[in-house]
């Protein structure tokens, strides 16, 4: 994957670049808004990671300018911790946001989810992962032909996992998408919900679809 990183803090930039390169991605980085905008407009990137606070042109301005220039690359904003309102602004202009300091696994999970997001999502009516099937219109879930009863919130959780099948989703991402909690509760409520969901969709079937990725999050995928 080709990633553009616009970040003025040298240490953070090096940390992100090294990490992404270790995962086999190609990273171009720019230390200021002007260079970043120039690169974004010229090269075809899969994902842009943009710091909100930059010298000169700020992150929001860069992305607005890039969008105006016809660049549709998905954008992940990096914001400093505690910036409650940054989220709203960030999501208006960009596609996702991440609060600093962040775990690298969180960043990886988010850019993976962003990069593979279809540009114009064709609206599927049925989601499938291996023998697990979700009927979005009838709001029914079946595995190997057997119907599974889910609570509304469990349905939402499974839908999010299925739409991102094969990708790691972090605790924070699940909290944001499923419960709309944009803060970190102390209790691991995600874990308890995942284990309930797992008992419904995996228990009694030959293969486990819902995996726990230690230190990162959760992953739903067809067994290989």
């Amino acid at each position, binding site marked *: 994957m080709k990633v553009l990183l616009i970040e003025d803090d040298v240490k953070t930039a090096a940390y992100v670049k090294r990490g992404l390169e270790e995962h086999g991605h190609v990273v171009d980085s720019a230390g200021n808004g002007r260079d970043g905008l120039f690169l974004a407009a010229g090269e075809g990137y899969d994902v842009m990671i943009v710091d909100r606070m930059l010298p000169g042109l700020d992150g929001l301005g860069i992305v607005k300018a890039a969008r105006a220039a016809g660049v549709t690359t998905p954008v992940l904003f990096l914001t400093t*911790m*505690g*910036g*409650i*309102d940054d989220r*709203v602004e960030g999501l208006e202009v960009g596609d996702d946001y991440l*609060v600093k*300091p962040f775990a690298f696994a969180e960043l990886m999970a988010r850019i993976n989810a962003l990069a593979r997001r279809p540009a114009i999502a064709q609206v599927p009516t049925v989601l499938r992962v291996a023998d697990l099937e979700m009927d979005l219109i009838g709001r029914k879930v079946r595995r190997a032909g057997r119907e599974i009863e889910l*609570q509304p*919130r469990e349905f939402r959780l499974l839908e999010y996992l299925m739409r991102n099948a094969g990708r790691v989703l972090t605790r924070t991402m699940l909290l944001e998408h499923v*419960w*709309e*909690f*944009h*803060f*970190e*509760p*102390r*209790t*691991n*409520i995600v874990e*308890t*919900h995942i*284990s*309930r969901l797992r008992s419904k969709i995996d228990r009694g079937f030959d293969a486990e679809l819902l995996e726990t990725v230690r230190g990162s999050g959760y992953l739903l995928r067809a067994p290989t």
Partner: protein
Amino acid sequence: MRSSWKRCAARDTCFVPLPRLVRTASFRLAALYAIGFAACVLLLGAAAFWSTRSALEKQLTRRIEAEMMLLEQEFRASGIDRLIATVQQRTRVRGNLDYFVADPAGKRLAGDLPVISDRLGWVAYDSGEATGEKQSGESERILVLVKQLDGGFRLGVGEDLEQVGEMEDTFLGILVPALGIVLVLGIGGGLLLSAAFLRRVDMITRTADAIIDGDLSRRIERTGSGDDFDHLSATLNVMLDRIVGLMENLRQVSNDIAHDLRTPLSRLRQDLEEAQKRELTAPELKRVIEGAVAEADVLLETFSALLRIAQIEAGIRRSAFRAVDLSDVLRTVAEAYLPAVEESGRALRTEIADGVQVDGDRGLLSQLFVNLVENALRHTPDGTTITLRLSRQPAGALAEVADTGTGIPADERAKVFRRFYRLERSRTTPGSGLGLSTVAAIVELHHAAIELLDNAPGLRVVIRFPARA
């Protein structure tokens, strides 16, 4: 000026020096008003004076004209001798009018007025001038109507203006003192008024100065009269209370931050020190580093909680308030926590009314109830029942998070909202001591009221939301 009232501040009653009094806005206004009022009185007086005077003069001239007509008729009918006789008789009787009759040579034939031979018509003169008597005290203004009669005779009918003069004197005698009284009353009233205002203003200034000098406990005295100054003083006092509260808060928070962050920081340092040792094996090193990262996470979490509270307290999110379905918020929280609560051996019950709406920020309201539920989850023994309630009230909405745990002692209930405050028995439970501070900040942002009550046994947290605007 500063030193002058500093001196008077030492005494209880305060004499306000006159120059200061004169400079006050209220005095200036009063003086301006008094002068304006006096000018009006003067104008009115002058108008009355002139109209009275002209009316008097008109009356006078009519009388003279009527007498002149009478005498002319007599002259025309009966000749000069008859006229002389009549005039002599009238002069003897000594009415109000004076006369002269003169022959063509200008010699006075009858009457007591000096002959005016050079002019005709209305003539006014000072009697002193005409008679050569120079005692100005007795000189009178005289108004005379002079007519030429057939045969070169002249007739003059006149009257002194004594009456008009008397009227003028009376008028001035009233107007001048009246003007004086108006000015004295106006300016004196202004002085009194400004002295009263100044006393009140000084009271405020003195208090402000004491506060500037460092005595933050000083408050402006109130007279209890309920006037503007009293209201102003009350408002200023509330403002001062708030400022002092905030300062106190800040001082406490910075102390607490310093105190509370020392522990994780020193643990972090210990971990790093241990990692420095060469003889550690790879798994040992990994364990130590994991410990250090965990400590750093605690620090970061504390900081972001503090920043979050600060941001909430700054009130910037109020502009983004909209109608929030509180019923849905509580249900989502209950649903999110049900598995965790059940797995911990506790029970979660809900009594949530449908469609209860408040003005607010959905994200923060979720966090508010998440924090309360987590508190109940962490600080209660197994077997506790946690209840989430929401009802519609005439004055808004009433939300409640109750548990059947050990509760909070009454004397500690107010303190738990303080940053980093932790009950003695909770010291060992993990937590930053910021959960309830965040709750308090969110409640305050939503203009709601929070109360900690005894659930007998356990704790009942009651939050009253105002009705939607």
